[in-house]
């Protein structure tokens, strides 16, 4: 039998050593299971094209026959695109594959110094064009069905306006178009009177992900710092909820820097001058006119979106020149469009039917 500790300090040391041993044991047995449970982007896929940091992923379909015109998913530069294939059962990719679509995903990669001076024009007319071209080539199709999410939706809109013959249908998910339609915090903070984007880009180069994450967190600080954890505490016995919560936390913390020049133009021309909605945006020598978009448009709005308020995304339907166009309001938030039950059970099966019907 070990002798009792001689002093209070010895007793405290013993307790701490016991805790440390227990914690190490717990981590050893639990951590691999947590890692496995939180493995994101699991739908089988292969990388069919690479250019600089960009990767184009093609998902393996189990369907014997797939729809001829492929779907290309385009996410924002701010976070990684695996939010669209977060976990089995919480995956837009999975739903689209089950609907018989040939699904591709554009991963912009993590920008480094090489991307710092690459412009919005480069991202749209070179990177996105290359991805569209390779998607069509790999699927043996002439066109693609573009699906753009958030900033990826803005890129997809601009692309479709510049290269209308490449796009069979355009689906937007919470894509801001009229940046001045709502006085939300991001719009106020990004206003030219309060925010000198030139100073920030000149000083930082690429905009670090923590800076963007802090801004997003600040838009709803009480919910983001207190509310969601209290909700988690109340649902600790719901394994499905906890797994999704942890995967979301992993994704939120897994941010990506934005290339400096892209950020500069995005803030100046879109947030501050609202040139896209005004029809005055130019990418290099190319004027971007949304009226030039003639393909069928599905504009998906998240009713509780605090990052891209519905008032900012709704005008896309009116501004494009398409004859076939539809606005779909979904009772969820910005990220809910990709992971919520309503999105995966109702929105995406319906969106897949719409894409097939119009392509």
């Amino acid at each position, binding site marked *: 039998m070990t002798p009792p500790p001689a002093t209070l300090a010895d007793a405290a040391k013993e307790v701490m050593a016991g805790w440390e041993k227990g914690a190490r044991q717990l981590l050893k047995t639990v951590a691999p299971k947590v890692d496995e449970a939180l493995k994101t982007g699991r739908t089988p896929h292969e990388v069919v094209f690479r250019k600089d940091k960009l990767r184009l992923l093609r998902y393996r*379909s189990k*369907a*014997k*026959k*797939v*729809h*001829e015109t492929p779907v290309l998913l385009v996410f924002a530069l701010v976070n990684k695109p695996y939010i669209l294939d977060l976990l089995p059962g919480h995956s837009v990719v999975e739903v689209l594959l089950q609907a*018989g679509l*040939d699904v591709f995903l554009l991963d912009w990669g993590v920008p480094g*110094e090489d991307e*710092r*001076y*690459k*412009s919005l*024009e*480069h991202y749209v*007319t*070179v990177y996105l*064009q*290359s991805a569209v*071209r390779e998607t069509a*080539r790999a*699927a*043996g*199709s*002439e066109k693609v069905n573009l699906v753009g999410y958030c900033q990826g939706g803005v890129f997809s809109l601009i692309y479709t306006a510049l290269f209308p*013959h490449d796009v069979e249908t355009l689906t937007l998910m919470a894509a801001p178009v009229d940046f001045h339609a709502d*006085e939300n*915090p991001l719009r*106020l*903070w990004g*206003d030219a*009177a*309060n*925010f*000198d984007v030139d*100073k*920030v880009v*000149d*000083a*930082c180069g690429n905009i670090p992900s923590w800076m963007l994450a802090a801004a997003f967190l*600040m*838009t*709803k*600080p*009480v*919910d983001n710092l*207190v*509310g969601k954890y*209290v909700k988690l505490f109340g649902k600790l016995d719901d394994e499905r909820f906890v797994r999704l919560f942890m995967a979301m936390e992993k994704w939120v913390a897994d941010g990506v820097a934005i290339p400096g*020049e892209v950020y500069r133009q995005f803030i100046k021309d879109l947030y501050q001058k609202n040139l896209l909605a005004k029809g005055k945006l130019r990418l*290099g020598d190319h004027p971007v006119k949304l009226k030039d978009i003639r393909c069928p448009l599905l504009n998906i709005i998240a009713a509780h979106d605090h990052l891209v308020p519905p008032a900012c995304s709704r005008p896309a339907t009116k501004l494009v020149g398409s004859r076939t166009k539809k606005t779909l309001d979904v009772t969820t938030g910005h990220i809910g469009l990709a992971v919520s039950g309503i999105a995966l059970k109702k929105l995406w099966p319906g969106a897949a039917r719409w894409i097939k019907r119009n392509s």
Partner: protein
Amino acid sequence: MTPEAMEGLRRFYEAWMKAVSASWENTLRNPAFVAAMGQGMSEAMDLRAVQEAAVEKVLKGMHFPTRTEFGGLKRQIADLETKVEQMRLERSRPPRKARQKRTVSR
């Protein structure tokens, strides 16, 4: 804790959340807060610019190329790369053809 007490606690928490969220929302949109946040950011960036200028001054004295000079070159290279890639993509654009099938076997 009794179920009544739990329910009371839950209601208190909900009322607290609502009040604090509303209060924060007002603060975040308050012109004085927004201006102060912008000013704080601007001054942090000024500080960074001053540090950068000091480093560049030392480098220049030693005839080393500076970040600004490298930046200018990289910008020109990036612009040229955009033009070259655009021309390459334009030249390799496949001809458009009429389409018939709606499904393909994989």
